């Protein structure tokens, strides 16, 4: 059996070679907590709660934690585990409740926008019930509103892909990191700086998105999106840039910013921002905080969440008694009460501010203004963009932010004019009187293959403009200013208890398909011109208009809240009308 001997010989040789090769192989040194650290040892911590020495890389990024070569180790690695499609598996292992809530929250779905848009454009009978981005993902929609949503609105949602933004300065999205990242990861000379995450979310993260439409974010900081002149010119360039070709000018900022430098998160609670797990239809449903929660607080014992949050923050002391929101009962752990004082702590750095409660002066207690929302008096200005001329080119091409590719059909936006002075008032979604501004006054022109179609959907909307001031508007600014009453800019007068109003703006001549003035929410006899997108929101009606303007003749002289006629104004009016008061003699 020669073949037997040969093969025996060869086998011995092979065994020798193999043993030699295996003995020569370096033996992997185990590193802790996972093998990733044998290469990535220089990576810095992302925050104090997730130290790499304990968590390692694998826990958050996946891959193969034992592999010692790049190819095997990186198989299945997720660069950004906080994207919501991965977050459940990674972040959600500990924060499963939060991931769940964010995934169904309004900032992820943008369903509020789609609800209102489709309702206003006549594609939905009630402005509720849609799923937003999620439902458009696998859909080929032919609807006009959906097309507009895809090409404009959908760029801003928490789970947008950061890499689709050409200008990385304005990149948004990325899941949890959209808000929680305070510094982007980058390579430094001899170590890698991991993205830094924090629960102390800087306002600039909020402003990545909240700077358009109702422009709450920039208004809070006293920025009003301007007519686009970029004036004054500084160093031969435009100044006051926002982004793209948008500019602003400075107006008085919100007192919470000017006086205490508060950030968005100082008021907006975790539940209000990341969702409460319920399906909300509009921003105000999701919103948690109200002025009263801090200015007329109810203190209770701090619950475990409050303790955890203040501990996580690190700057805010733990006390027994903290305030809670009225609506969702979330802890306002930075508003605390001890024996002698009530203090509000700024989350950014723990700076304490003495809180005095809302004054009990007549203006807050009298019945005459009990229907007023705080914002109706305390908001000093509202960014009002009149006329949103939406032009659609059927044969154009534009980026679809949901599908993330260029598709057929493009939109271009134009406007008529901007104002910030004398915000219009109306009855808001909460049945209280609050400032209103265009939201949105769509005048659409559709350039289709061979024909041009037109439509218009004029709407006003009420919101808290975040331009709060301690000083309020004067009595006359509401009671005899046509713009504030919602009539529009023009000349208002009363004769024989009838309201006369002559608007300045001529919509028809200016090319609009309607005859009422574009800044007119309501006619002088109480006919509402423009719609709203909330069940209870509306303009003043005839009775209300007459009541408001009717009070003006008293206000002329009785221009103080402390005036005794306001103690029981109805009674005073009866007395006056029956000639029993000495007035005007």
């Amino acid at each position: 059996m020669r073949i037997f001997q040969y093969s025996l010989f060869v086998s011995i040789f092979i065994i020798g070679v193999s043993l030699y090769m295996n003995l020569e192989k370096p033996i992997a040194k185990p590193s802790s907590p996972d093998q990733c650290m044998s290469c990535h040892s220089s990576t810095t911590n992302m925050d104090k709660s997730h130290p790499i020495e304990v968590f390692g890389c694998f826990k958050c990024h996946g891959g193969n934690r034992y592999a010692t070569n790049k190819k095997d180790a990186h198989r299945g690695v997720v660069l950004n585990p906080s994207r919501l499609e991965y977050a459940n598996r990674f972040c959600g292992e500990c924060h499963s409740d939060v991931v769940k809530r964010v995934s169904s929250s309004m900032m992820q779905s943008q369903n509020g926008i789609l609800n209102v848009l489709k309702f206003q454009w006549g594609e939905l009978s009630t402005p509720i019930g849609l799923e937003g981005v999620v439902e458009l993902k696998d859909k080929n929609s032919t609807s006009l509103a959906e097309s507009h949503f895809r090409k404009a609105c959908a760029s801003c949602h928490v789970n947008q892909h950061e890499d689709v933004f050409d200008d990385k300065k304005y990149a948004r999205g990325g899941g949890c990191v959209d808000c929680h990242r305070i510094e982007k990861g980058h390579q430094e000379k001899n170590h890698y700086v991991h993205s830094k995450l924090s629960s102390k979310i800087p306002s600039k993260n909020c402003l990545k998105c909240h700077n358009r439409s109702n422009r709450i974010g920039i208004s809070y900081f006293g920025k009003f999106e301007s007519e686009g002149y970029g004036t004054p010119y500084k160093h031969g360039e435009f100044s006051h840039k926002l982004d793209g070709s948008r500019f602003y000018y400075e107006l008085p900022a919100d007192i919470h910013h000017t006086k205490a430098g508060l950030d968005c998160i100082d008021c907006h609670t975790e539940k209000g921002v990341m969702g409460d797990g319920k399906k909300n239809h509009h921003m105000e449903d999701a919103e948690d905080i109200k002025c009263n929660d801090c200015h007329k607080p109810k203190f209770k014992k701090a619950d475990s969440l409050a303790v955890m949050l203040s501990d996580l923050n690190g700057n805010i002391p733990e006390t027994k008694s903290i305030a809670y929101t009225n609506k969702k009962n979330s802890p306002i752990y930075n508003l605390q009460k001890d024996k002698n004082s009530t203090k509000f702590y700024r989350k950014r750095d723990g700076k304490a501010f003495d809180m005095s409660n809302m004054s009990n002066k007549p203006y807050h207690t009298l019945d005459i203004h009990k229907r007023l929302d705080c914002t109706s008096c305390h908001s000093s200005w509202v960014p009002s963009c009149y006329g949103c001329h939406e032009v659609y080119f059927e044969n154009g091409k534009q980026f679809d932010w949901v599908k993330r590719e260029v598709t057929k059909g493009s939109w271009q936006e134009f406007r008529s004019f901007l104002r910030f002075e004398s915000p219009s008032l109306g009855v808001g979604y909460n049945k209280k009187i609050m400032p209103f501004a265009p939201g949105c006054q769509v005048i659409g022109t559709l350039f289709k293959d061979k024909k041009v179609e037109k439509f218009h959907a004029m709407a006003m909307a009420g919101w808290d403009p975040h331009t709060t001031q301690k000083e309020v508007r004067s009595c006359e600014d509401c009671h005899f200013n046509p713009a504030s009453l919602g009539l529009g800019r023009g000349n208002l007068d009363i004769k024989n208890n009838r309201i006369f109003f002559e608007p300045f703006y001529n919509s028809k001549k200016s090319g609009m398909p309607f005859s009422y003035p574009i800044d007119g929410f309501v006619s002088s006899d109480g006919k509402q011109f423009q719609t709203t997108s909330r069940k209870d929101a509306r303009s003043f009606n005839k009775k209300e208009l007459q009541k408001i303007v009717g009070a003006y003749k008293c206000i002329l002289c009785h221009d103080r809240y402390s005036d005794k006629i306001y103690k029981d104004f109805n009674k005073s009016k009866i007395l006056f009308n029956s000639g029993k008061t000495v007035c005007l003699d």
Partner: protein
Amino acid sequence: MSKYVAWVTQALFIISLLSGLIVVFVYYPSNAYDSVQKLSFITPFGLFFRELHYFSSEIFIFSILVHILIELSKKEIKINFKSWIYSIFALLVALVLMFTGFVLKADQSANAAAEVAFSLLKDTPFLDKFLPLVRDNFVFYWKFFVWHGLFLPLIIEYAILKHVRKLSVNISYFTIALGVTLLVSLFLNLPRDIGLDEKVLHVKGPWFFWGAENMLQAGLSVLGINVVIILPFLLLIGMYKSNTKLLKILLLLWVIIYAYFSV
């Protein structure tokens, strides 16, 4: 030649057995995937022994097939019927051992394979009663581990002993078997483990299962699959009594059809 292959096959079995004895020490059914990864990447010589275990087993199966082919090409079967039955039973157990071994590596493909096997069992009359023998609701791999690491080796050893009558550890054959295994492992890689988090479109079971998988996909019923699987064994049993051309052709046909579906 025939004897030569038989002895090498036996040596391969012993190598597989011994290398299995080594890797079993670092395998933890409750933490299966991680322990396999740890074995492969961190334990000194872990990958060497895992490869040895894997390739020796694979070559073992191949050499059994070669052994059968050689024996069938002869005019008559020399062993008695009882021994013949044990041999076929050993082949079946070897395949089950291979399958349980595949499952024990605990990656995504292993999980999928186990799930497929469970549902096949569940839908098979009579065999469904044996499902609790492999399925464990607490530690997924525990029962596979027990079968693969303890009972099946004992059973196959018994069957092999019945088949060969005497167990001889000839150092020369052992050396050759080891050489062949190492040679193969020098040129081939272990099929890569598919991480539990990885997103893959399609996972496959062990190679001898591919045909069955594809037949299932093509629409064959569970009962049909059982028939397909059991058919070659029946044919082999039948061959003892009448080593006719017809049965050989049928077996060849089966191999061709199964190979076709496998690819």
